[in-house]
């Protein structure tokens, strides 16, 4: 029998998430193209090298603004609590043994998810600020060159960390069955919620009564 479903994300939250994903893929593809010569061919996906250079910053700004919407919707549920530290301490065991039942009980998000949330926030702030500093079409001419050199390096490092974070984020969603539906249809099964986010499940059930 199909387990009863719980609403995890609204249609607005899902749309916002996938709009950010779209920007991330486009900014990522164009950024990779300019980062390593082996990936320069990716410029073709955005209409050629010049168009890649033109579009990348605008896509980045769109990603930042859209992420801001998600930030304010989700920041409340991502405040760090002491059970998150305990969860994170046992995370390596979860990865090697795959037994979620042994993990400390967490709310809507576990320590790993919260870490990813704050990592994305930090990376996007660094990407925005450093990106503006060497945006040739608008600002670079009035920024001291030594500062621009630091900015390009930090921009690359922040992008690198962001990509690693996204790999963790996407793999976790693929690995933990029943998760992708939360961001596609908006719902998770009650069993999933009870198993992975027991404190959130408790609140949801209590709220319905």
């Amino acid at each position, binding site marked *: 029998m199909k387990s009863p479903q719980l609403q995890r994300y609204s249609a607005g939250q899902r749309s916002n998430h996938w709009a950010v994903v779209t920007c991330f893929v486009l900014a990522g593809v164009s950024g990779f193209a300019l980062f*390593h010569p082996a990936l*320069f061919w990716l410029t073709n996906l955005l209409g050629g090298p*010049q168009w890649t250079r033109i579009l990348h910053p605008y896509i980045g700004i769109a990603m930042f603004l859209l992420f801001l919407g998600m930030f304010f919707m989700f920041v409340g549920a991502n405040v760090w609590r002491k059970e998150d530290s305990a969860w994170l301490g046992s995370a390596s065991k979860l990865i090697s043994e795959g037994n*979620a039942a042994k993990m400390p009980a967490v709310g809507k998000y576990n320590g790993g998810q919260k870490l990813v949330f704050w990592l994305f926030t930090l990376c996007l702030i660094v990407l925005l600020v450093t990106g503006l500093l*060497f945006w*040739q079409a608008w600002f*670079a001419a009035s920024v001291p060159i030594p500062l621009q050199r630091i900015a390009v390096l930090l921009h690359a490092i922040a992008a690198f960390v962001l990509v690693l974070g996204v790999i963790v984020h996407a*793999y976790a969603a*693929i690995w933990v*069955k029943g998760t992708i539906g939360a961001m596609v249809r908006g719902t998770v099964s009650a069993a999933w919620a009870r198993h992975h986010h027991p404190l959130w499940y408790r609140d949801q059930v209590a709220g319905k009564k």
Partner: protein
Amino acid sequence: MSSLQSLDVVARSATTTPPPQARTHVAEVAKLIDVSKCIGCKACQVACSEWNDLRDDVGSNLGVYDNPADLSPQSWTLMRFFEVEPEKDKLEWLIRKDGCMHCEDPGCLKACPSPGAIVKYSNGIVDFISEHCIGCGYCVKGCPFDIPRISEKDNKAYKCSLCSDRVSEGIEPACVKTCPTGAITFGTKEDMLEHAQQRTVELKERGYANAGVYNPAGVGGTHVMYVLKHADQPELTGLPRDPHISAAVGLWKGLAKPIGLAVMVGAAFAGWFHYLRKGPLETPEDATEGEQQ
């Protein structure tokens, strides 16, 4: 410039495979600018505009002789004027022709992300190939001498080409041909270094004890060199004492590229193999209430 000399390209931006290496007996060239012979007439600026078909906008007088005020996409060389006191109470009016130094290890080429937009020829000339330029401005960050300028009209980077088109035909750059005092000379780098040494000796005899050649080792030497009256104080005419490619650019365009790419690809593979070996994390069918309590 257009790349009509592909056989003579020894370094090419954003390219990880070796360039053609068949030609091995090309002499390296150099332009030598003898600051002590320069009278600041700006004929070199005019010759540069003439030969390269450049016409900068008429600017405004800033109260100094520098005209235009700075290098630009339309001004690839520029006389810079300096009133300095190398020694106390000894005023000197120094003039330096500024422009691309054509580094042996060019920072612009290292920073450029577009394959073939910047090349170095076997004779040492560093050239921007405009049709491959994407206008990102990375060359500006790479250059230790603040030379490339990005056009707001076409978003392309411009700088002195050392008249690579003239040199490929065996004639000297336009600025060299026009210089009325012989302050600018052109030839093989070997000959120019020898000539510079002679000039240094002459200047020392005339009382410039610190006269010397500016051919900075930090960028592997340059194909535009100066004879300076005060080589111990290159800053007097706005030259960096020890130019080199910035450490940030070196890291960004050096180790960060292969290591960054490898770690990202590795992370994706780590996920894939984790899934293969451990399988997905399923929610048990019989997850009973209370098991977490």
